[in-house]
């Protein structure tokens, strides 16, 4: 009769993950989204270069560059506040809430301001079907707004978890990465679409 000996190696202190799974998943998702925006911006640039009657086309309103600059500042400030929130979170979780709240509030301001801007543009005659200019504007800026709303929902869920005292570092980091993407892509869209 033979006996088989099995040796088990018990790892008491495993190596921590290089990148938390939630963050890695979010990064992979955002890579595909980045390519989506890149494709849209490339198509917009080609259409704009080929516009024979100028851009915006005659009869179409000019995009509100100055007002949107204020909105851009609000979004960038929101991103900066989230960086502060992340640093405070690493030291003392209880003091994070005001920073996260301010960041979400500024992000919500950005989305609402854009909604108001859209209502004004529609009244001036810029619609999805009024011209290529309108089509590209609502498609690109609309998709960005959709991402902003989704990221705000994620940050809102993080806020709730923080309020209950169950927010994990990796969950918070994934939400942050999403919001930084929304904030980071916006200046490029502002420069290419509004400029």
């Amino acid at each position: 009769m033979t006996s088989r000996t099995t040796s088990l190696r018990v790892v008491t202190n495993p190596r921590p993950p290089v990148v938390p799974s939630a963050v890695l998943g979010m990064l992979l998702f955002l890579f595909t989204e980045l390519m989506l925006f890149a494709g849209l911006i490339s198509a917009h640039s080609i259409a704009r270069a080929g516009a024979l009657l100028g851009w915006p086309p005659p009869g179409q309103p000019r995009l509100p560059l100055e007002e949107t600059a204020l909105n851009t500042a609000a979004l960038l400030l929101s991103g900066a506040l989230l960086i502060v929130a992340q640093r405070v979170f690493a030291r003392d979780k209880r003091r994070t809430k005001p920073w996260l709240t301010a960041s979400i509030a500024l992000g919500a301001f950005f989305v609402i301001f854009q909604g108001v801007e859209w209502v004004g543009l529609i009244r001036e005659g810029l619609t999805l079907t009024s011209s290529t200019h309108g089509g590209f504007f609502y498609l690109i800026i609309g998709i960005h707004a959709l991402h902003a709303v989704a990221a705000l929902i994620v940050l809102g869920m993080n806020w709730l978890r923080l309020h209950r005292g169950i927010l994990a570092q990796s969950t918070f980091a994934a939400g942050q990465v999403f919001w930084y993407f929304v904030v980071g892509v916006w200046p490029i869209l502002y420069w290419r679409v509004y400029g």
Partner: protein
Amino acid sequence: MIRALFPVLAILAVWVLLADGALACAVCSGGDDDVKVKDSYVAATIFMSLLPLCVVGGGFLFLRHRYRATPDE
């Protein structure tokens, strides 16, 4: 092996050297002779080609940096 590739390389060279420039997109001023449009196509092609390479390369460097910064068990 290399000799076997000569005909293929020759065909490719002739194809590249003799082909006219073509703008393939049929819906956005395809085939337009406008210099601005052509420049936009070239810029968009370079941008769309390099962006994923830069992102993947950046991701690799980020992971390597994080791996080295993470302490062993």
